[in-house]
């Protein structure tokens, strides 16, 4: 019983982080059709910014969301306005653009990762935060993990409210569903795409801040987050935000269960899930 409870709660913690990891990627792909391989680097950058603020200024890590969020929103917005817009303009068709955009994102990934390595080295980095246990139903949990879960859940809810209740959110959803129709209805499609890319950066920053509270990180771990995010996004359905959240939690719980049996086959299991999915239901759980 304790074991089930442990798996469930830790699964929810991991799931919330996975969901947060992938929401940004999903937003970027859903509207701008860019699979941003550099997403994980954005996350690591936010973690480093948080770490600098916590260890140098001694502030609460959550306050770093403001700083890291603003920086990464601007970076994302600017990247789309300059690079990706240009690639879009010269690509002959949508499929070619998706391919080229992935390659450009890889370029951004290499540049960002190595700039961070030059600045912060490649060693494991982290700081101590709420490092004490909490007992629930006889099982021990880390206080910081529960904190991360709560906050990640809040961000997921807030973001969904933003999409369904604000003007910008509505135009994002319109652009994701049908860019041509959205443009005819007066949505400035290029602006919305750039905003989406910025929001992707902002969500990466949220993920990075929360991850830095709960885990260690280094300048070379970014691709690992990207891989997880991509798996989550594909399982949920490319471009579906709700799908990402759902599949994030599913993978979190499945992963934690596999983990308690043998941590070393986790990625293999994830890939097998994707393999089966591509054969059975390539659109993903909630894909259109």
């Amino acid at each position, binding site marked *: 019983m304790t074991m089930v409870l442990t798996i469930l709660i830790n699964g929810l913690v991991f799931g919330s982080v996975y969901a947060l990891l992938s929401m940004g990627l999903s937003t970027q792909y859903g509207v701008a059709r860019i699979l941003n391989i550099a997403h994980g680097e954005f996350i690591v950058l936010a973690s480093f910014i948080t770490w600098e603020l916590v260890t140098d200024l001694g502030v609460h890590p959550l306050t770093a969301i403001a700083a890291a969020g603003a920086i990464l929103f601007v970076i994302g917005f600017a990247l789309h306005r300059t690079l990706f817009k240009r690639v879009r303009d010269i690509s002959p068709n949508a499929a070619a653009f998706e391919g080229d955009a992935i390659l450009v994102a890889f370029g951004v990934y290499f540049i960002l990762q190595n700039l961070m390595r030059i600045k912060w080295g490649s*060693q494991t980095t982290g700081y101590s935060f709420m490092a004490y246990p909490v007992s629930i139903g006889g099982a021990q949990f880390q206080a910081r993990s529960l904190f991360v879960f709560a906050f990640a859940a809040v961000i997921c809810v807030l973001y969904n409210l933003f999409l369904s209740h604000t003007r910008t959110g509505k135009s994002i959803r319109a652009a994701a569903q049908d860019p041509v129709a959205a443009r005819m209805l007066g949505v400035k499609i290029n602006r919305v795409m750039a905003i989406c890319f910025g929001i992707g950066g902002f969500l990466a920053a949220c993920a990075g801040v929360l991850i830095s509270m709960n885990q260690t990180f280094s300048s070379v*771990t970014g691709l690992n987050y990207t891989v997880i995010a991509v798996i989550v996004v594909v399982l949920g359905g490319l471009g579906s935000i709700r799908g990402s959240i759902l599949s994030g939690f599913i993978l979190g719980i499945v992963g934690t269960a596999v983990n308690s049996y043998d941590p070393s086959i986790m990625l293999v299991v994830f890939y097998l899930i994707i393999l089966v999915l591509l054969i059975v239901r390539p659109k993903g759980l909630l894909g259109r």
Partner: protein
Amino acid sequence: MLKRTLSLVLAALFIAAALAGCNKPSSNDPNSTPGGTDATPPDPGKQSIVIGGVRSQSGPLAIFDQTAFGPLYRMWADEVNADGGIYVEEYGKKLPVELKIYDDKSDVQTMTQLYEQLCLEEQVDILLPPVSTAALFAAAPIAQKYGYLLLSAEGGATSLKEQIEVCPNFFSVLSFSDTQVPDLVTLCEEQGITSAYIVYIEDLHGTEYFTATENAFAAAGIEIKAGKPIPLDTTTTDFNAIINDARASGAQLFATYVYPDQAIPLAATAIALEYNPDIYLMGSGGSFDFIKGALAGGSGVSPDDMVEGMMAWGAWNGRSAPEAQAFLDKFDAYFGPDGQNILNNPDAGDKEVYHDWWGHICYQTVFEIIQEAIEKTGTLDNQKLVDYIANNHFQTSLGDTWFENNMLAAECYYGSVGQWQNGEFEVVDVGSRRTADPIVPKPAWAKP
């Protein structure tokens, strides 16, 4: 069609130009064997001893060149050159050393190609080892093929013995599972430890240490409650499950045969869950000073208190022997005395380096052995150096040092298991190497 012809001519021109560029006439006799086995008389105009190495200066392994072997070759080169160089009899003069270090981006395929370049093209005098056990496996045959001596630095493995059989020019310097696990067993027996929970990384390092421990513990009657393999990439690994499982097993010894990238989050999880076994053996990485700050950063606990009572592989300190103290003084004079945590000080200049109470003194002997061999044999002929090193004793920072079957003899090391006590890394092996009595059970984790 024209376009094709054009591209073709362009391509052909490029290939020709590239090959011509690579194919500059060489001043060396193409028929002579490269490397130190050159039979030609020594060139009296020789200005320096060229020391070539391929090191991972970028990529995931860069941390080792930054903190482990890297600081020592820089220190040694400066020290030798400040002294005017190494006296080589066959040249009748002191020759300064010149470092020629290439970066392999932490990629073994690149590494092998660059070593072939060092051996064939640059014809360096002495080779330095690459980073990681896997790289040693690949570098040893290359050194053998071109007649070079190769002493290891970071990395060591039981299975390297297989490679030594076909590569007698290769010498293993760092202690590894064969030398260290038996000392852990005697320590456990002394302290009345009867059960263990082991986490190991799915890598040569983890697997070999785990296998050695399984065998040795079985023989000593210590029960292994569980052996958990974890992947190199731990983004998806739930350390909570492992720590809770270890606690539930009631094991007295908790050992993590992993690298710093996993050892730090594992320890951080143990701290957060207040899991406090009788012995917490951190494994690789635990012997670096930077581990203190990595665990204490942001917690309000002093770095020294945070790691109090933790054990790790090692081990040596200034009280191990006068030679060790002399090396420590030299190291501190060169890099600055303060072993502060590199993780809390990213802007630290590249001269600020942190102690490694396992490897540093072993790596230092690499240079002391090479230098003594050159001075004693009076030659840079690598084959003569190999013969000399295989058959002689050396006076190094480890004291009396020698190789047995190309492995540094187990008796040479200052210890195998260390424990953090008041910020010092004490040797706690049973017997005369011990610099302080072990604290078992480990005290509770410090609180702010």
